[in-house]
């Protein structure tokens, strides 16, 4: 497939001022990375290393203090461009709306006609296994289901770039595995570029084309590992001997950084 660059990060850094004006937290330093169009890229790194900050910058929610970011050739700088969909680490469902209305939220006010909206929402609910819960409120769902609502809400907008920040953190291992495969299916069927932040080495190794390993704060990429899985991949990957190679390479890199992040 034509691997035109989708996202280019060039020397990106960011410092957060600390409330009260004394001191500052450097979250990111010299992050450079190119993600190809249609690539599935996973990011792993110790807690607090700046993964969510990096995703905010990629989404255009936060202007980087240093460096520049481009998406499909245009610079992103603190405003969200069209074609980017984000699923956040925290539950972002709207408690005052039904599941259906949550998913339709971003489609309204865009000049789409009713049947188009209904069609897209229905398909997304189906895809995420939420069909029977269309009339429920988020409060009546589990944390994992709420996260699926948020994924569906992003999905209906058909983004070219999907940014997901630990979307499955609230799920049990088996649901997580299934959701991982759903994400793969989504990626294959939409042809979108996916950037997935995850805490799980297995998840990263199983799903991604490449995995970027971040250092402890200030975060930067210390290694990128390519998995070379075929695009049509399935759970057989788990039994592939190369799967073990990938995870042990990731762990080797991450171990020292995680210890450092914990102050040892």
């Amino acid at each position, binding site marked *: 497939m034509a691997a035109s660059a989708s996202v280019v990060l060039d020397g990106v850094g960011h410092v957060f001022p600390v409330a009260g004006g004394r001191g500052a937290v450097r979250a990111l330093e010299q992050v450079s990375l190119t993600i190809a169009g249609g690539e599935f890229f996973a990011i792993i790194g110790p807690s607090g290393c700046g993964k969510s900050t990096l995703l905010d910058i990629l989404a255009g929610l936060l202007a980087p203090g240093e460096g520049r970011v481009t998406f499909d050739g245009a610079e992103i700088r603190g405003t969200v461009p069209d074609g980017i969909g*984000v699923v956040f680490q925290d539950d972002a469902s709207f408690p005052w709306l039904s599941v259906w209305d949550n998913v339709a939220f971003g489609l309204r006010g865009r000049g789409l006609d009713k049947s188009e909206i209904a069609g897209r929402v229905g398909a997304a609910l189906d895809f995420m296994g939420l069909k029977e819960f269309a009339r429920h409120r988020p409060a009546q769902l589990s944390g994992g289901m709420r996260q699926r609502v948020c994924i569906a809400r*992003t999905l209906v907008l058909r983004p070219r770039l999907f940014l997901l920040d630990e979307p499955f953190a609230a799920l049990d291992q088996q649901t997580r595995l299934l959701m991982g495969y759903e994400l793969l299916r989504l990626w294959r069927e939409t042809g979108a570029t996916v950037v997935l932040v995850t805490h799980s080495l297995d998840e990263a190794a199983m799903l991604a084309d490449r995995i970027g390993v971040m250092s402890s704060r200030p975060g930067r990429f210390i290694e990128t590992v390519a998995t070379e899985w075929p695009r049509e991949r399935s759970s057989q990957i788990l039994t592939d001997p190369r799967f073990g190679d990938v995870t042990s390479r990731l762990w080797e890199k991450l171990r020292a950084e995680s210890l450092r992040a914990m102050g040892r």
Partner: protein
Amino acid sequence: MKRAQTWLDGAAVIVAILLAWQFLSLIVGAHVLPPPRATAGRLVTLVGEPRFLADLASTAEAYVIALAIGMAGGLVLGVAFGGWRLIGDSFEPFMHLLVATPKVTLYPVILLLFGLGDSAKIAFGVLHALPPVAIMTANAIRTVRPVHRKTALTLRLSPTAYATRLLVPAVLPDILGAFRVCFAQALLGVLVGEMFASTRGLGHLLMASIGVDDNPTILAIVAIVFVFAGGGSAALLAAASRRKS
């Protein structure tokens, strides 16, 4: 089913209040505390008196105006305080001060500014009603979750769409709560305003009745206020809980 239960609970409370009232009246004497029946009788004759109706209308008018100004003004100030940090930091402490001050102490100032009359009691009602609404609205806006704000940005909502489709529904439960406080505080403010310096209204009638030891009239007025405030508050609570379910 649940509705019938709530209704029964409400009825039980009313019966309990009436019984306690009757009992207390027996103990302290009917001339000091007229029993429910006598009060009801007085209420019926009061309603037939044109003077009373004029007082009632005067209070109702002042109340509605104070409620409207308190709510609208409180909302506008609250949005400004909550939406712009600089404005909030500079002026919100002033609202907290107003809430904490016994407002009766400000009455001379109000009288100086508005003179003796309807505008003074409306101003007094607003003084009670507006600050809590402003504070509650500001807090509601500040507690809009950051992840919801980020979501709005990634969904590329226009500022108007953000306000109407996210901000308003997110803060609505708190605004309903603020309205309940406003509802009670405006009434308090107007009545107290009438009691201290006014020539008409229920508050004034109450004061006049106290002056001549007309206990049945006093109790009749208290009963009216009680039923109105209690009923209104219960209705607003019910509206709020209906929204939640």
